[in-house]
């Protein structure tokens, strides 16, 4: 075990995975010479050479589209999108090809590519450096989606993504890249896709979250300590979803608050709520409440704190539900 920041854990994962499998390669803007604008890919160019850590032209659809072709040539490409909102030019490739090409070959050819990007707000950046775009990805058939909330998971889920035979998108909470430290197993380490994690056990109410909303939910659980025993469920992989864990926690506590940073309408929190509305009706002792970002453009940073789900908002929702 080493104590690493979240972004160091990602870097550690890359070193391990590129060493482990010579078909893994990394491509993206500034991933080579600079080692990534957040230094997630630091050291890879020197260690594995310019063929396996490639500074690409400034063209996101070109990056993802050529990764499709790289798969056809036997590579396992890992594409970096420099920021959440700069992944949008690649959505066309994602939806029309990345999610369909395996299907289009009748399952005969695989596309084991990974897309990863820093996501989310709270970092006092100019516009379009703060989006939480997971809905666009998770709604797309043929792709899987993982969002870690700890350094260990950042390593383990990325490793799982890289080794997975299907295209996987990993969103990394940039807010915690350098501010969150944690124990990270050294060397080979995989957190399987499709397994949620109970970040904190509780019996009165469940906070369901992923990514940077997990530590926030833990804070909210702390704030509620005297009032209720709060469980925090870290979803970890949005697709495949660990529906059992979700339903089990709902059955246990009977009260669920979903915390999501992305805008509310048709966000992934809606999917979680819909599953509960369909499958946990008799277990629930009150409404399924969502605490989310708002349905507006991510605001200028001086007022971004008002946009982001906060401990206050989560606590308020939890209290109202507890009193329902």
């Amino acid at each position, binding site marked *: 075990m080493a104590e690493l920041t979240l972004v160091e854990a990602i870097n550690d994962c890359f070193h391990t995975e590129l060493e482990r499998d010579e078909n893994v390669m990394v491509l993206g803007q500034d991933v080579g010479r600079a080692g990534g604008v957040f230094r997630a890919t630091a050291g890879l160019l020197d260690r594995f050479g310019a063929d396996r850590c490639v500074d690409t032209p400034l063209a996101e659809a070109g990056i993802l589209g050529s990764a499709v*072709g790289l798969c056809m040539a036997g590579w396992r490409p890992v594409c970096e999108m420099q920021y959440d909102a700069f992944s949008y030019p690649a959505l066309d490739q994602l939806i029309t090809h990345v999610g369909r090409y395996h299907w289009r070959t009748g399952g005969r050819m695989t596309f084991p590519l990974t897309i990863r990007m820093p996501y989310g707000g709270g970092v006092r950046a100019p516009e379009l450096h703060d989006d939480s775009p997971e809905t666009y990805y998770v709604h797309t058939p043929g792709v899987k989606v993982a969002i870690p909330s700890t350094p260990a998971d950042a390593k383990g889920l990325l490793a799982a993504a890289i080794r997975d035979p299907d295209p996987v998108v990993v969103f990394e909470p940039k807010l915690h890249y350098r501010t969150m430290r944690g124990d990270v197993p050294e060397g080979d380490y995989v957190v399987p896709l499709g397994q949620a994690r109970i970040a904190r056990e509780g019996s009165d109410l469940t906070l369901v979250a992923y990514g940077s909303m997990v530590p926030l939910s833990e804070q909210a659980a702390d704030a509620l300590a005297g009032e209720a025993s709060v469980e925090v469920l870290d979803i970890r992989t949005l697709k495949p979803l660990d529906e059992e864990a979700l339903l089990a926690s709902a059955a246990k506590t009977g009260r669920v608050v979903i915390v999501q940073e992305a805008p509310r309408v048709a966000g992934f929190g809606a999917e979680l709520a819909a599953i509960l509305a369909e499958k946990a009706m008799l277990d629930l002792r009150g409404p399924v409440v969502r605490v989310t970002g708002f349905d507006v453009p991510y605001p200028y940073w001086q007022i971004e704190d008002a946009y982001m789900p906060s401990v206050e908002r989560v606590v308020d929702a939890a209290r109202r539900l507890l009193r329902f």
Partner: protein
Amino acid sequence: MAQVAAAEPELRRVIGDGETVADGEVDGLSEADLVALYRDLVLLRTYDERSVVYHRQGRIGTYAIFWNHEAMQAGAAFALGDDDWIFPSYRESAIGLLRGMPAETILSWWRGHPAGWWNPADYNVASISVPIATHVPHAAGLAWGKKLRGEDACAIAFFGDGATSEGAFHEGANFAAVMRAPLVLLCNNNGWAISTPLSAQTRAEALVDKAVGYGMPGTRVDGADVLAVYEATREAVERARGGEGPSFIEAVTYRTAPHATADDPRVYIDLERVEAEKKRECVGRYEGYLRRLGVLSDEAVEEIRGDAADVMRTGIGAAEAESPADIGLVFEHAYVDPPPSLAADLADLRRILGGSSG
């Protein structure tokens, strides 16, 4: 301001007109090669003409006609080795025939049957790209990836004149150039994108003028001259294999047929021009060339046409004999390792279709 000079306004041609313009020749092609190339053309032509009939008979669905595009497809493919990859658009749907793909597969594709699925690696022919230009980055990536592995293979991507307006074309071409990927960009300039003429697509004097912006060589050939296309592609392939990166070929032809079976070009096209172009169509031109060369007999023509007809008869028979696809296929192949919900959905669907409702 300086206007950069346009590249090669002239079209490269090999085949003459049998009268005032003399025939040229491409060195390195044996008589057998020349006839083999003819066979390819006839196979494609037969596929296309039969498909239009099959469509009218309701045996296949909407179909993108490629009549008078056969020369660029056959000519370019003939310049490739079997290890080289072809990335077709819907306009080159049947190019797999030249790689041994059964006609049934392609016919099934147009019939909306999963038997139209194939493994690209079986023929080194990528899946048909329906969304315009989006396969250009794939071809760039494959070619680059092969090069990284030290393999000798190169790739060719077919796309239309309209496709050059898409960002995906631009990003793919630039990627290929930057990575020095062994790629041939073959632009089928048939003058139209559905109802949109080239003049509403670009102000470039010729599409080949785009090549210089990517730092790659470009050449402009008569797309209805199978030998000119072959020769230009062969040169591009040599460059690619030599590590010199991608090339751009503009193959100029004219769309004499509707865009697809659903289209009625009479509202927008110049029908006189269409008639004139039909007279210059590519298969007849090559046949005339071979006859002037004296390497093609009536019997050979008949045999080749008969073989092609057989391929199509067998193909449509096999396609129609396919058993109806099981609905289980709706859920298969979306993932190698699918989320558990898909199996549950299928079970539910089977239960409902089985009649045991609720």
